[in-house]
């Protein structure tokens, strides 16, 4: 069992520093030393090290990163790609932006190491188009890394060739899904690809491709430098390491907190974030971005922030976006905003998602306009149950899970709204 209370800054190590994003700042504080160390190791060793650290994908699904890397066929000598998923679009999440703001070189270094481990010579950082400033910082960082010889045809004399480019999305939530991102990167509509084959076998342009979240890649240099054992001392046994939590809502100090996994949520809200604003109390909490099932205030008691504990409560840690819903928010409004979002963002490829999200939004429009019907709640539950697990990607589940949980846990409030046609 690792330490779940002591805070160690890994991906946010440079927060608040003057000139934090400069290459000099990064190198002065040990930046790119992990890269040098990695070049002294075998690619397989790096993968084993990451595997041993227990690092899990920080984008939402929580898939073990080392395992993912090991799926790439080793004997394939053709082109392989490493993609950084910086298309942060899960409502409530703003950690990847924060990492880019703190120090983009960490991402660059993580990508070079990952590329070396899987044998990829080309990498892309896929960013939201409306991160205008952040894209500029990334471009500067990439240029600096090229100039300093960390990127190029022969990096630091190791003979390893790695090129990095950035690519801006164009406003589609679905491009945060790894295969949707790959489609977008190919210049197509960001529609997820059919699996199998998985991207590690056939991804970008049908070549082996690894797509990792920004936070995952930014954690890699630290693991290589300090070793898997050191990483494992933090967090819980099954969820080791630190994670960025994005706390938003009516608390005194909302923002990004880097905390070891297994940190108590009440401590985060009341101590780190300074508690709720006066006059507001917690009504509910969405613990992992808007796709995660909602938790009631009661369910937060004694909850720790790790993958397993939140899964036990029937929700998920997801991207670590903790949204505190206070008593000012009507659950009808919350549900409407949620289903409208998924309706707007459904790519339209799979029928259950395309029609299901539209149907849910359609029903919620009716309810909000005071035209709700008594059996609407039951219908919404049925629709979401039959959207779940029936599509290519998880957007359908992402729409269904919160709907199901809100309808179940706050059904009385919504039923009351339907009856009155307005909020009580």
């Amino acid at each position, binding site marked *: 069992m690792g330490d779940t209370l002591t805070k160690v800054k890994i991906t946010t190590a440079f927060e608040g520093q003057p000139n934090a994003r400069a290459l000099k700042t990064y190198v002065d504080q040990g930046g790119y030393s992990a890269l040098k160390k990695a070049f002294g190791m075998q690619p397989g060793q790096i993968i084993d090290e990451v595997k041993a650290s227990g690092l899990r994908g920080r984008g939402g699904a929580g898939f073990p990163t080392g395992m993912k890397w090991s799926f790439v066929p080793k004997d394939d000598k053709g082109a392989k790609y490493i993609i950084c998923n910086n298309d942060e679009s899960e409502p409530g999440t703003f950690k990847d932006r924060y990492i880019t703001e703190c120090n983009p070189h960490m991402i660059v270094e993580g990508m070079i190491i990952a590329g070396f481990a899987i044998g990829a010579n080309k990498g892309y950082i896929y960013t939201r188009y409306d991160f205008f400033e952040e894209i500029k910082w990334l471009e500067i960082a990439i240029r600096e890394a090229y100039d300093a010889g960390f990127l190029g045809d022969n990096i630091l004399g190791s003979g390893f060739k790695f090129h990095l480019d950035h690519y801006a999305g164009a406003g589609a939530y679905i491009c945060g899904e790894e295969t949707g991102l790959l489609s977008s990167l190919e210049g197509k509509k960001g529609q997820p690809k059919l699996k199998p084959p998985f991207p590690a076998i056939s991804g970008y342009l049908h070549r082996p491709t690894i797509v990792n979240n920004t936070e995952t890649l930014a954690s890699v240099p630290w693991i290589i430098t300090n070793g898997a054992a050191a990483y494992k001392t933090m967090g819980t046994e099954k969820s080791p390491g630190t994670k960025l939590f994005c706390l938003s809502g009516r608390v005194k100090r909302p923002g990004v907190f880097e905390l070891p996994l297994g940190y108590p949520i009440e401590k985060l809200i009341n101590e780190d974030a300074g508690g709720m604003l006066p006059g507001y109390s917690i009504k509910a909490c969405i613990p992992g971005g808007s796709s995660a099932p909602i938790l009631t205030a009661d369910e937060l008691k004694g909850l720790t922030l790790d993958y397993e504990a939140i899964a036990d409560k029937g929700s998920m840690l997801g991207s670590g976006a903790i949204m505190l819903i206070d008593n000012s928010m009507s659950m009808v409004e919350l549900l409407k905003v949620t289903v409208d979002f998924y309706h707007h963002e459904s790519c339209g490829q799979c*029928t*259950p998602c*395309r*029609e299901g999200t*539209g*149907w849910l939004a359609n*029903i919620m429009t009716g309810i909000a306009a005071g035209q709700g019907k008594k059996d609407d709640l039951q219908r919404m539950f049925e629709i979401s149950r*039959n959207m779940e697990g*029936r599509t290519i990607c998880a957007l359908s589940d992402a729409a269904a899970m919160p709907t199901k949980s809100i309808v179940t846990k706050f059904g009385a409030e919504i039923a009351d709204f339907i009856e009155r046609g307005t909020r009580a």
Partner: protein
Amino acid sequence: MSETVTFKLNGKDVSVPKGTTVMEAARRENVAIPHFCWHPGLSVAGVCRFCMVKVEGRPKLEISCNLQATNGMDVKTDTDEAKTAHKWALEFHLVNHPLDCPICDQAGECGLQDYYMSVGKYPSQMTRPKVLKPKILDVGRDLVLDTERCILCTRCVRFEEEVTKTGALGIFDRGDRAIIGTYPETKIDHNYQTNLVDICPVGAFTSRDFRFKQRVWFLKDKPAICPGCSTGCSVNVYGKPETRTYFRLKPRQGEANGHWMCDKGRETYRHLNQDVRLRGAFTTDAKGHRQDTNFAGAIESLGKRLAGVNPASDVALLVSAQHTNEEYKSLFDYFVGDLGIKNVYQWREPTEKIDDFDGLLYRGDHNANTRGLQDALKQNGIGSGVKNEFDFVAKSGAKIVIAITPEVPSTFPSLNRQLESLTELDFVSFWTLAGTVGDNKKAKHAIPMKGFAEKKGTFTNHDGKSGELAAPFPCPVVDGRDISEIVAALKGWRPTHGNK
């Protein structure tokens, strides 16, 4: 030898080659798995999420079109879970589908209707207004697009990308606002566009040619071979036997054509309809007046004429390559074998470029049975020496010309002109379908013939493969006969001084 895998499908052991998907295996085993987006001639899209099956030991249902069969897999298509998934997949498809059935041409052969009866039969839960989209868009010569009826299965988009490689169709916008269409103010312009109507599982694409002509449940379809070119696509002919009318041709899966056929070929049903056909036989009496007669009368007058000449020198045979091998056999057995006719000519369209090929299906040789005719001529010893120039007939000096005309006028632009010039000759007996022969006052003798959909026989296509006309429709013309029947009737009128 390819490897095989054995897996269980609904409790029954099934062996298939490695790499076969469960969907393909189920089709082979006649297990119906409902599907919209999967099509045997196109890549797998996996977007309709209809073909869900349960694989024992896996937590979620899987789509059978993208699920490769592996050894020991236990697949069930009829568990309650799968049935619920099918029912809901259908409900999701129907949520925004307009209730256009009364005016939709697809009604009767619509996937949504069929599946509603087989896996649906539920009261709809949709109580809210539907999403509306553009309707009746003109996107091609033979295409009418209704984006509201579209279920976005992407079959048409994949067809345009993979088969014709034009990429003319796209899906614009996203979510339930997604609309299928061409680039604004452009139209699909190729010879294969009606295939989009065939592969569309709903009524989003309808054919302008067939639009509103008939409801499909009144139609009977019978297998045949397209007579439009030497590719010999397998087709189904759709007609209404009660009114003796033909309505359309659709491709049938076949060796020569896969799943498709061209638009030119689809027009080859038109000449079969009564309004353009020669309705009855006629002949001319001694005074030169034309007389309508029946089949027996026409045979009698032709037989008498034949009896009065020396067939070897005085009779010429003008044959087109649009008839069956069996007909050629009986024709040449009698005229060349028995009567010893030397003057045999092949009827050709002067403008056709015989070796053209568009790379997909359509060939420049617009005759269904060129190979068959050449083989038959060769067997009768006139193979190599045959003059296929049309004008030679006139120069041959024959007293009687038997002109077996091409059947399909749409592939023979100069047919009418040639018929016209033939009537200038002394005596021509037309064996034909063309109504223009009847209209021509100078024509002296004609026997109506059966069309390709009304006779049995085989065609030999460009690659030497034979295709069968197996299930004939009743001939709309009472006196319509095929060549074999005419020849059999003529045999009773043996010429008196033949050289044999």
